[in-house]
């Protein structure tokens, strides 16, 4: 028990970007004195944890309200305009909350657009401010370069194919990955943060008649207001896909330990991971 406590102490003092060699599970009791005056570094900084969960909350609010808004017109178009009289790019095979929409269903769902639109835009504001806070602090703390972006040495086909192969075999991540993101995480997380989130905000704003009156290029380069709506739908779908894989990987890696790391900041030590597995 004494060794376990000391081991926790040791691991919680290693910086969040440190790579723990797999052979480090047998920690000598004398190790703690080697890292004096270093404050306990959590697996994820408080700011990362708080912004992560606010974003999660907002994402669910945006998803539920977005689905409700789509239900009022589950038809998608390309170009500037589209309505019940024009051909569609595709239709969702679901009933609608408006009785003029030709869905093939004989019933109409209740209208939920009022609160859905209020909630959608409110959650969008909160997630944009949260994202800005995360971006600014990430730049100052060098979080992106240290923890999030792929390390130069890892960017080879060999590393990539081995990482993909490990994931395809549903291999449990190594203990080191409790402390540092693997290559696929270092590719997908920046993609979500720097590509999908900006795209979903842009395509959303491109649907706003007032916003595009001031900045018409934001919708014109997308090919029109209905194109923006269709793209907004697909980017949202990509984000939902990421969410599903993300939650799936969290479960595979150890739901309790990964959740604890993102909630309290304390990551599982190799010893604790072994305990959880048994």
């Amino acid at each position: 028990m004494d060794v376990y406590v000391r081991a926790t102490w040791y691991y919680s003092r290693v910086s969040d970007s440190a790579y723990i060699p797999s052979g480090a599970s047998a920690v000598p009791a004398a190790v703690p004195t080697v890292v004096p005056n270093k404050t306990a570094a959590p697996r994820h900084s408080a700011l990362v944890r708080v912004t992560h969960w606010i974003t999660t909350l907002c994402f669910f609010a945006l998803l539920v309200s977005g689905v409700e808004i789509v239900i009022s017109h589950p038809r998608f178009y390309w170009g500037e305009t589209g309505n019940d009289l024009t051909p569609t790019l595709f239709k969702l095979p679901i009933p609608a909350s408006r009785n003029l929409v030709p869905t093939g269903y004989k019933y109409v769902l209740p209208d939920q657009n009022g609160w859905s639109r209020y909630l959608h835009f409110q959650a969008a504001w909160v997630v944009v401010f949260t994202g800005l806070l995360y971006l600014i602090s990430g730049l100052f703390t060098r979080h992106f370069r240290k923890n999030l972006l792929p390390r130069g040495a890892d960017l080879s086909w060999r590393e990539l194919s081995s990482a993909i192969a490990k994931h395809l075999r549903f291999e449990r991540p190594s203990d080191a990955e409790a402390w540092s993101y693997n290559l696929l995480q270092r590719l997908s997380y920046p993609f979500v943060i720097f590509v999908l989130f900006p795209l979903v905000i842009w395509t959303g704003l491109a649907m706003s008649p007032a916003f595009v009156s001031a900045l018409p290029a934001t919708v014109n380069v997308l090919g029109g207001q209905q194109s923006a709506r269709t793209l907004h739908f697909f980017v949202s779908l990509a984000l939902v896909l990421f969410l599903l894989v993300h939650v799936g990987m969290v479960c595979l890696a150890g739901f309790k330990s990964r959740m604890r790391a993102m909630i309290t900041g304390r990551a599982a030590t190799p010893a604790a991971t072994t305990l959880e597995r048994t």
Partner: protein
Amino acid sequence: MSEPSRVELSNRKLSRRRLITTGIAAAAGVAGLGVAARLAQKYGLVPPDHGGIYGLGETLTYASQRLLTRHSLAREFSSSQISKPPFANEVEPPTDEFKRFQAGGFADWRLSVNGMVARPASFSIDQLKSFPSHTQITMLQCEEGWSYIAEWIGVPLTRVLDVVGVLPQARYVVYFSIEPDTWESIDMADALHPQTFLTYGMNGDELPVGHGGPLRLRLPRQVGYKSVKFLTHLTVTDSLKGFGKGLGSAAPEGGYAWYAGI
């Protein structure tokens, strides 16, 4: 328990310093919010439906878009982009009163204008047509997601407001449909905007009843429900508190946002 180590002591010191800085930051934040709220109120950036759980998002949307779009023009399109045929959304079955106007070719239809104006007046459709007519080819987009482009023919609202003489303290224009419980309001930035039309024609013809004929307010920088059909009455006011439940228009009373630029 052993004595606290130097590390723990320095942690404690750090947390006390953190507590103080966090406290100062929080106080500054609250004070900043207070100042922002005062300024927003002063510059007319607070929407009438700012209360309730969605008030924050609604206020941020309205304030930011009002600052960004005070004078900007809605996108206009070429005549080849006009949707054929334009999609007419569902309207309530016409009332007996409306049918009487329709039987008379809307010759007796009146638009009355009162409130904070120097010369309250009422206009027939022919009188509105006697002002120089303007056209715009703009998109009508519904909050549901569909849209169409049409040529709208009418007189800019600002022209009629000039005739009745809006008093300087005016802040909003409230407008009413002949349909019961159908009314909206806009701020003066939208009321005086050159693309805000009293519309009596569409695509080179009269405005069809299905699209709000004989008279519809067109507001191309906001989604469709702000473009009220069958317009009969305008009131200029400095406060929306006395109208309905004081939320600004019928939309928030039905759960929809007052400002619909998004």
